[in-house]
């Protein structure tokens, strides 16, 4: 039986048709996946389904009743888990779970802390969460926060449908499995689930049905038992992409560029490694293993405790991001939205901000140079943007990332640290980013450090992989003589050892 039926949904914004004639049927007790590249219209569709936007054309029927944005919002039949964390960071787990209190059981005028915490316990137990109801949200790990966000959506009593927008971006494999187990049990209780993800292996492991969006149109709609990954990728991109291709730099590595000795800092202890010209050095580990912190310390964003490093044979100066950039060491952050882009400035200004010497003379910006560099980056890295004057916040995540990579390359760096470069980025752009990294290593002889939580990504790109556990280096694996088949086997083997050491 269809719980939700969307017919011919069209949503226009000035100059863009975000959704065109999209049909969607959600069956009771099924997990329905929606996939598509960045900017394909997934978010707009979700906003229409949750009543955040009113569709310009088309009808939306839930359990036989036609809905508009307003009645949809009032009915509370849909529980929605947004992509970004939007918890109250300084309130407790239990408070976050039941807010707004008037929508849940807590309708009493008085604030009953103990009662609320007691009622929170079963939800936390169901999610196997290792936190207590009284904990303050900002003190619990990001992965637990993500699960809390799902639990919060489920604390609404009336919901029949749950929509999750990329819920696993900050979860490790085992944490994702925990979430999937809960989703499966909800499905078996007869709830209907809409699951949005970039990770196709997840789609196949959990989904019953898939809808594929491309450029605001529904281009594929099938039962997942009838199709395979290649079919979905073909529908998503409109072209064939070989996802088994690897991007390991082929040229032999050169001189040692950066050598780190016994470095300690916030979240990590006694770390040593080196990176050479023309190689990609992968860093594997769980979220919170200290990988980002090492690189941020090296880059000068965080203070070091002990240890030293040398760069091109000379002693490395810690604690100054400007001089790191000047010396040719660049860190591309995982937190693109908060630490990477300047949201309300345009693409040109976002590019120019790291290229003072290129675009200004005596501190005064030279407009022709400024525009030329921006156009060059947009062209070289095929950034999809209306113009150089478009605010960067209006670009898709993948295109924002291309701008950040492109502007970094304009300063001709020698070492580039990519921290989760494909987080929240679609398949096609992912491949483009891998290709960029390979080219940088091979042609420019840049030493690349790649931090990633996706095992597949590391094996696809790295010459060597360093694994980290709990702030220390746990092993180093050279991957140059591993064949395609062995890589696939190593994904399972490697992920097992890492997770093994995580317990």
């Amino acid at each position, binding site marked *: 039986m269809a719980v939700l039926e969307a017919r011919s949904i069209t949503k226009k*914004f000035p100059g863009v048709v975000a959704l065109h004639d999209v049909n969607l049927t959600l069956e009771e007790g099924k997990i329905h996946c929606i996939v598509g590249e960045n900017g394909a219209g997934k978010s707009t569709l979700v906003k229409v389904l949750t009543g955040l936007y009113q569709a310009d054309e088309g009808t939306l029927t839930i359990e036989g009743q036609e809905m508009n944005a307003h009645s949809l919002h009032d009915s509370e039949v849909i529980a929605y888990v947004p992509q970004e964390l939007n918890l109250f960071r300084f309130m407790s787990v239990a408070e976050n779970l039941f807010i707004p209190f008037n929508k849940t059981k807590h309708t009493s005028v008085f604030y009953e802390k103990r009662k609320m915490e007691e009622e929170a316990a079963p939800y936390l137990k169901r999610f196997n969460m290792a936190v207590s109801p009284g904990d303050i949200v900002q003190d619990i790990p990001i992965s637990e926060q993500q699960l809390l966000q799902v639990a919060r959506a489920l604390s609404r009593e009336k919901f029949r449908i749950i929509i999750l927008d990329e819920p696993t971006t900050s979860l490790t494999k085992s944490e994702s499995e925990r979430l999937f187990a809960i989703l499966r049990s909800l499905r078996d209780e007869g709830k209907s689930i809409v699951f949005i993800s970039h990770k196709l292996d997840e789609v196949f492991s959990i989904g019953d049905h898939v809808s594929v969006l491309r450029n605001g149109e529904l281009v594929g709609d099938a039962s997942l038992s009838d199709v395979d990954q290649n079919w979905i990728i073909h529908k998503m991109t409109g072209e064939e992409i070989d996802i088994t291709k690897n991007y390991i730099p082929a040229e032999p590595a050169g001189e040692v560029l950066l050598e780190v000795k016994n470095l300690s800092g916030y979240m990590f202890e006694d770390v040593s490694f080196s990176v050479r010209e023309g190689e990609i050095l992968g860093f594997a580990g769980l979220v919170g293993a200290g990988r980002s912190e090492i690189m941020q310390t090296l880059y000068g*964003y965080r203070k070091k405790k002990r240890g030293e490093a040398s760069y091109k044979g000379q002693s490395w100066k810690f604690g100054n*991001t400007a001089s790191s950039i000047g010396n040719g060491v660049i860190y591309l952050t995982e937190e693109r939205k908060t630490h990477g*882009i300047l949201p*309300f400035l345009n693409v040109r200004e976002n590019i*120019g901000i*790291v290229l003072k010497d290129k675009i200004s003379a005596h501190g005064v910006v030279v407009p022709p140079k400024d525009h030329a560099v921006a156009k060059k980056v947009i062209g070289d890295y095929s950034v999809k943007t209306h113009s150089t004057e478009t605010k960067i916040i209006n670009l898709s995540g993948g295109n924002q990332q291309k701008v950040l990579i492109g502007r970094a390359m304009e300063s001709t760096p020698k070492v580039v640290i990519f921290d989760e470069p494909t987080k929240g980025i679609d398949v096609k752009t992912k491949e483009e980013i891998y290709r960029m990294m390979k080219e940088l290593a091979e042609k420019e002889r840049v030493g690349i450090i790649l931090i990633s939580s996706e095992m597949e990504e590391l094996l696809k790109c790295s010459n060597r992989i360093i694994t980290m556990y709990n702030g220390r280096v746990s092993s180093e694996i050279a991957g140059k003589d591993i064949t395609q088949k062995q890589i696939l086997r190593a994904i399972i083997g490697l992920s097992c050892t890492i997770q093994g050491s995580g317990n």
Partner: protein
Amino acid sequence: MNKNTLDTYKAIFKKFVDWIRGNQLAGVTAALVLIFIVSCFISENFLTVYNLQIMVRSLAFVGIIAIGQGLLLLLGDIDLSVGAIAGLCGVITGKFAVTFGVNPILSILIGLLAGIALGMFNGLLITSFNLNAIVLTIGMQTAYKGLNQVITKGRTITGFPKSITIIGEGSIFQIPTPTIVLLIVFILMYFLTRKTFYGRNVYAIGNSIETAKMVGIKTKKVRIISYGICGFLAGLTGILMSLRLASAQSSIGEIWVLPSIAAPVIGGIATTGGIGSITGALIGGSIMGIVSNIIVLGGVNLYWQQVLNGLIVVLAIIFDSFSRKLRTH
């Protein structure tokens, strides 16, 4: 009405909407023009040379201090001690020029240097100890005001030399000198924020201080310099006012604190930083200037003046928010 003229009107209206969409300052500029036109109808005394002179002269004081505050707001910072700095600088200039008999021009320069120092001191404390700018500058406001009392012992300094009071009182080609100073300040600050790399850094820090640190901007340095510039402009305002009154007193400046924030905000500078422009601060200040002027000319009861003043500011903000909505959708 025949179809052709209707189409022409429609086309004009569409152009107007597009203009508002494409221009961040469009909404507030339209509000300024509208208020100006309405004012012309309210009082026949509004559009006279004499009244316009009064208006732009008082705009000069609020305008200069608002441009300084606007710069800090762009950074996501704020300085609530601008009024106290203004008063203190006026007194310092007066003390040197009148009591110590120092060269008047030199006295003015000393006053301006004091403004830079006081502002930078605020910035230094805020960035070094990672303090909340609002709380720190409220504290400093009291301290600076106290310093003022120490210097003047509560008395007004009178007898400014004629050679410099002309800067506050005089006019060039019918334009009051303070207004000319405002225009120079505006042009310089426009250039600084829009055409230099320092300006880029200001917007970057206002957008996201974490990103700014990541890309290697020396955020502490940029912020301290900006507090210095704001202090300089506050001092300049206070000195100009002392020259206008030919006397320095400790109370000068207090009334400017709120308008210095309201004007940039009306003009579209976000209090969270990174959005808006110095031009907006000037337009915002102009709106407030016209409104308080026409309320007096319109013969509104003194007690109601304040109420109307506040309401019209709110109206201007609503208008701006409306035009912002047009832009984003």
